[in-house]
């Protein structure tokens, strides 16, 4: 414990062992997976080629020489050593053949020899399948595909003539490309990913391992994580290359191995953990109720939300298992990849696409910046006005000016919506009183934005005012006196005394109000409701609309996750500025 060196050595040894094991496993599984993938591709290739031939032969109809010509022509486009034969069941005839042995006496067309019975049997079997398929709902594929030991594909496909099967095209075809080249299928991208995983996992293992000094646990955890990680990766690679069935067994092997390792370590850790738990049992007992609540109703929903952002969940399929409706990054691609803010309207003119993510993002930023600017400037001016010495009735003014903040903001929003009413709203009456035309506030994006801005400005300035006022009153008066003695003008006093003194109070307040405004759901939702046509939607109301008006839970969750990412970036930045979380 006192000497960290042995622990570090053991940790690195474990890490090294984990890396070696992981690389070996990954190599083996990748090989298995790619082999599986290659086979699938070759099979598809061969089948497609033979289908092409069968169509030509069917087109030739009863004309046997035409069929033979089609076979010869087809042969030229195929890999070397391909052998094609056309067999008719009726009369057991070999209509055409490109087998080098079938020349001279044995040249097609002729009757099948006894040693060619397997050709005849395959054709008959295919005819049987075709007959059965006429009755069955579930069709059996009308094909006979095997892969010979030497890597040659043996494919037989029936020839239809007048609604029934008359024979078969029987082809022995080597794979189009040498297996060595095909084996490289996962490509450099997948390999780079494997390398990245190999780098990322030790880091992951390192985070919990740092605390468990003096045991082999970290090493074993590292190994276990590698095994699990690469097992999943191998399974993914296998699926990606199409060899799902072949990839499954290494996957289960890896999962079992990894889980066993983790369980081994886990039992050791559990003992240690239990010890720590027992020693701090009082503290844990006190935090437990709150923690349980938070985990169930805050943290779990949060991660569950991120999980459903990868699914196509809607109100209609909430009870389906998530793996059935998994869509991967599709939503994120749709949201972030759609950069067409401008789109062509029906009449060909360019119009803004208000549903676009980037439009909403820009609008949200404009909304936040203008609101915070207004809030700060109005609040600061009022604070300066209230701070004038000897102001009569100052406490009363202060209370009256705080009222907008004290009002529940949904009520404020509905009040302002009423005041901006087109026909009966007082704002339009006031405009008419001044001899102006009344305005349909919610018909234009800009005027609609103004209504929300007025509402939010009204309810947000008191916070800034209170903060600034508090800071102003804590500035010692003798600072100003000293400045006056030095002959500073009022503006100079404001610049070099007032503003710097306000800064420590205003910066956190501004940071806070940026997040508030960014997430100011009620005002937008209740005042403009996004009118007209979603132009004044901010990110958070847009996400709500996707979720609870269109019921696209998965898409809305992805949208919200993007918002969270934006806020996270902002939070990191704000933490840098304020160092708020230091010294816990």
């Amino acid at each position, binding site marked *: 414990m006192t000497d960290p060196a042995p622990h570090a050595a053991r940790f690195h040894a474990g890490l090294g062992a984990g890396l070696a094991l992981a690389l070996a496993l990954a190599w083996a599984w990748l090989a298995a997976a790619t082999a599986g993938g290659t086979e699938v591709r070759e099979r598809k290739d061969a089948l497609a080629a033979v289908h092409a031939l069968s169509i030509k032969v069917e087109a030739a109809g009863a004309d046997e020489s035409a069929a033979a010509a089609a076979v010869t022509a087809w042969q030229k486009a195929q890999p070397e050593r391909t052998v094609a034969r056309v067999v008719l069941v009726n009369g057991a005839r070999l209509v055409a053949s490109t087998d080098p042995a079938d020349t001279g006496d044995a040249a097609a067309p002729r009757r099948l020899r006894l040693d060619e019975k397997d050709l005849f049997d395959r054709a008959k079997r295919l005819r049987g399948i075709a007959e059965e398929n006429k009755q069955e709902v579930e069709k059996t594929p009308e094909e006979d595909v095997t892969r010979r030991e030497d890597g040659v594909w043996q494919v037989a496909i029936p020839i239809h003539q007048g609604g029934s099967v008359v024979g078969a095209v029987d082809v022995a075809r080597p794979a189009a490309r040498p297996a060595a080249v095909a084996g490289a299928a996962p490509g450099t991208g997948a390999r780079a990913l494997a390398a990245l995983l190999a780098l990322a996992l030790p880091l992951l293992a390192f985070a919990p391992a740092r605390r468990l000094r003096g045991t082999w646990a970290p090493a074993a955890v590292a190994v276990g994580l590698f095994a699990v990680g690469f097992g999943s990766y191998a399974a993914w690679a296998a699926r990606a290359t199409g060899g799902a069935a072949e990839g499954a067994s290494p996957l289960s092997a890896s999962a079992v191995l990894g889980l066993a390792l983790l369980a081994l370590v886990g039992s050791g850790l559990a003992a240690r953990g239990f010890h720590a738990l027992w020693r701090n049992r009082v503290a844990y007992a006190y935090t437990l109720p709150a923690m349980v609540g*938070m985990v169930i*109703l805050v943290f779990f929903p949060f991660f569950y939300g991120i999980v459903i952002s990868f699914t196509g969940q809607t109100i209609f399929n909430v009870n389906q298992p998530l793996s059935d409706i998994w869509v991967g990054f599709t939503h994120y691609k749709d949201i972030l990849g759609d950069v067409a803010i401008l789109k062509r309207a029906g009449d060909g003119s360019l119009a803004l696409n208000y549903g676009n993510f980037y439009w909403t993002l820009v609008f949200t930023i404009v909304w936040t910046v203008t609101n915070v600017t207004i809030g700060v400037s109005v609040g600061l001016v009022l604070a300066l006005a209230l701070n004038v010495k000897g102001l009569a009735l100052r406490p009363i003014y202060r209370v009256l000016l705080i009222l907008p903040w004290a009002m529940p903001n949904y009520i404020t929003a509905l009040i302002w919506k009423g005041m901006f009413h087109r026909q009966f709203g007082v704002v339009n009456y006031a405009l008419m009183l001044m001899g102006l035309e009344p305005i349909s506030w919610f018909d234009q994006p800009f005027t609609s934005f103004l209504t929300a801005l007025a509402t939010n400005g009204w309810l947000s300035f008191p916070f800034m005012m209170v903060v600034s006022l508090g800071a102003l009153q804590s500035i010692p008066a003798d600072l100003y006196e000293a400045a006056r003695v030095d002959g500073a003008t009022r503006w100079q006093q404001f610049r070099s005394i007032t503003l710097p003194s306000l800064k420590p109070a205003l910066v956190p307040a501004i940071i806070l109000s940026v997040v508030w405004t960014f997430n100011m759901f009620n005002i937008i939702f209740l005042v403009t409701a996004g009118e007209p046509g979603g132009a004044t939607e901010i990110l958070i109301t847009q996400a709500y609309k996707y979720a609870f008006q269109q019921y696209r839970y998965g898409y809305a969750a992805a949208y919200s996750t993007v*918002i969270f990412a934006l*806020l996270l970036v902002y939070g990191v930045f704000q933490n840098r500025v304020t160092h708020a979380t230091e010294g816990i």
Partner: protein
Amino acid sequence: MVLVTLYPLLWVLTISFSGGQSLALAALPPQPTKLDLLRAVIPWPQALSAENYVSVFRDQPFARWLLNSIVISAATTVLGVFLACTAAYAFSRFRFPGRRTGMMSFLVSQMFPGTLMLIPLYIIIVQWLGLGSSRLGLVLVYATTAIPFCVWMLKGYFDTIPKELEEAAVMEGAGPARIFWTVVLPLARPAIAITALFSFMTAWNEFIVAATFMDKEDMYTAPVGLRFFVGGFSQSWGYFAAGSVVVSIPVVFLFLYLQKYLVSGLTAGSVKG
């Protein structure tokens, strides 16, 4: 400026006392003169009447909504503050593995955007647990979302209570539970009261979760009910105004009393978002 600030408030007061449902302050003749228009922007009712206040309780289910709000907010406060007190005490007094992680996770949880939480919460509470349109569902959601803020507020206060007091109690032979209940909690009474009032106010003013979870009209909370008066095809501005005044008055006074704690709590280190 004071007038601009007060105008919307006077407006809603005027409509609440107008006795009608119109949102115009005064009825205009077909060809309004300047004087008519001036009358229509002055926030004073044409006929003073308390009819809206009587009617909103008598003819509308507003009393029921108010009761829902009171029950939900009170339950939220009790549950949230109790959970927060114990957790904050542990965070303040004990040093244990996971303490820092726990506090940070509480802080980070405040950054989760509402809608990201709303979708999974809706699925969990309404579709899995079947607690849609139930008070319990809302109480659970409100209490857990209030915990982080309460924990941070209370932890800050617990830190200021001298440890010597508890050490003295230990000397007298008191166990941890006894110390918590008889020494720490009574000392922290002011902070607990303020925290409780804040969580009450937050639950009282909450709109969007309630609007999403409460489908049945008789389970609406007051905010959802007020929106119901003037949303969609309903234009009962008189009911809305009277209801708003009733709902706002307690919280406005509460807020005026509490705002000095709020400002110092928010700006002194908290990064609540």
